[in-house]
């Protein structure tokens, strides 16, 4: 239960991290909070020769606020959201979600960028950032490029990150005053992986509506008819088309699983005012 030997290289900033990753190539791996990679290292499932630590990189731990959006550094921790040490772009959604990730001792170390780069389809941030329509800032040798949340995760544990790129930041559009959000996850035990996740984000002022099922074997899947109905007919209208939309999107899943996903989204819709 001890990791293989590796060189530990703390990066002062994102640029240094990219330089170190480039220098050490395939054998290098990034670590930030280490709450996913740490267990894999201890179990020797991951055996990097070089570990580049991002958790103290100055430009990755900050937050930049603008009128329409907030950019969170990749190394901002879950507990920073939970405790309100960073501003919330989503009218309470980010602290609410953060406070229910794993356990407090994990939230004190685990980071937003680390969780997204690890790309577990059941991870809270994966579902929430896709729901909010966030944009990821990937820093590489040639500078920073932007990738939409829904395009970032290509499959479970597979992202758009290039070999020498890091997830430097996440830009979350600010929800307007009339916006609402719902988030529900089924966990067999507190803090464990979600079995089924429902995400609802609706923002009338911005004309924005997105409804997702998450914690699948693949990245979150949109329920477009539900999102349409939510905008046009409100939460109850969305509920009316939910079951059919899940059956279409997850047709190959066993009925018991589909039921779990339906209920997760139904409860997320109930949070924003669905009454049925």
């Amino acid at each position, binding site marked *: 239960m001890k990791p293989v030997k590796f060189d530990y290289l703390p990066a002062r900033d994102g640029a240094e991290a990219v330089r170190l990753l480039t220098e050490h190539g395939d054998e290098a791996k990034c670590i930030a909070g280490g709450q996913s990679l740490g267990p894999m290292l201890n179990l*020797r499932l991951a055996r990097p020769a070089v570990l580049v630590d991002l958790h103290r990189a100055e430009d990755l731990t900050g937050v930049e606020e603008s009128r329409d959006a907030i950019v969170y550094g990749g190394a901002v921790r879950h507990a920073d959201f939970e405790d309100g040490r960073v501003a919330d772009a989503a009218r309470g959604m980010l602290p609410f979600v953060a406070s229910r990730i794993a356990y407090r001792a994990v939230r004190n170390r685990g980071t937003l960028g680390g969780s997204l780069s690890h790309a577990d389809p059941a991870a809270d941030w994966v579902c929430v950032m896709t729901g909010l329509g966030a944009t990821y800032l990937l820093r590489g040798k040639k500078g920073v490029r932007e990738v939409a949340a829904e395009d970032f995760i290509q499959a479970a544990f597979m992202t758009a990150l290039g070999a020498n790129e890091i997830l430097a930041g996440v830009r979350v559009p600010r929800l307007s005053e009339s916006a609402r959000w719902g988030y529900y996850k089924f966990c067999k035990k507190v803090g464990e992986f979600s079995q089924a996740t429902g995400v609802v984000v609706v923002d009338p002022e911005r004309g924005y509506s997105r409804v997702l099922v998450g914690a699948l074997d693949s990245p979150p899947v949109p329920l477009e008819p539900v999102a349409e109905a939510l905008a046009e007919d409100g939460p109850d209208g969305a509920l009316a088309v939910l079951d059919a939309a899940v059956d279409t999107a997850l047709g190959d899943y066993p009925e018991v699983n589909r039921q779990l996903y339906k209920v997760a989204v139904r409860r997320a819709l109930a949070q924003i005012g669905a009454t049925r």
Partner: protein
Amino acid sequence: MTSKPSLSELTLDVNGEAVHGRVEGRTSLADFLREDLDLTGTHLGCEHGVCGACTVELDGQPVRACITLARACEGRAVRTIEGGDDDPLMAALQDAFMQFHGLQCGFCTPGMLMACRDIILRHDSLSDDQIRIALGGNLCRCTGYVGIVNAVRSVFERRAELLAAGEPLAKPPTQPDWAGQPLTRFRRTGGQMQAVEATPMEEGAGDDQTLRETITVQKPADEVWAFLSDVERVVPCVPGARLLSVNGNELEVEMEISLGAIRARFKGNGRYQFDDQARTGRMEGEGRDARSGSSAAGGLDFAVIADPAGDRCRIEFVASYSVTGPLSQFSRGGLVKSFVGAMAKMFADNVQRVLSGGQVSDKGNRLSVLQLTLNVIKSWFSKLFNK
């Protein structure tokens, strides 16, 4: 890669005293505390962040010492269970654990106490449910938690008397209540995503899995067969595979797979046989990953079936794969199936691409079967938390 241990200076504050040490990059905070400083009150249970026995405070916040690298704590303040002697809250918790039978064997107790102290510090109100939820990351196999919850509640009731004024307080984030407030109707102009149909990974039985893949190619069967029976051209179409040498119908092949943070390079021997008449063939091989000591074996059967139209044909692949050794946890359940599935699909894509004059996708170099890791997490880390 470094072969000899390279030690680095480490300075941190432990229980109020400056501490110096020399540690390897891989040394965890828990090992540094226990092995170098003899602070054995920090217990190591699962060593992968699940059980909570190793919980210590880092800059005043509880963390898992087993998955926190010592060097990541450079210059910071650590408090272990040994550092709680002068703390009235910790003293009260210890008394309460005794009074309410909050421990039996004591293995989880140091981590439990560190977590309980944090729970009382951060809350201004606490129901039994909240205590249980907050303790979800600390496992006790003796008490059934009843004694622990009672102990925490009894100390929480004395919170004001035990804590100095001005201790930080966090309000648990809650959701706004929108019940009964109508939501504005609007025309949707944002948030659209491309609809996709998600398919589940099936749980397979046994270790050796097979998977079928069929592709249709807009080329005559003869031309396709000529390509498929040319090992030097076809092996590179297998994702991550490299042909090292050919001797008769014996092959030496290297194959690299990458699953998120997990990498393996299998080197081994293979063989092939082709039936030009029937336009069927089989390639198989077995290899070993020197780093993990795991072995893998796989086979690929293929058949080219001419279309009556003559200008196109169908290729049917049947792939199989098995893994033994330390990496064999991947071969449980749906893992091999999804692995082989991803591989067969990519192989088929590559074949199609090369036949239509293109190049093998460079994605094949880093076999994109990271999907597999999902099942690794499901089987291996099923008790792990979600981050």
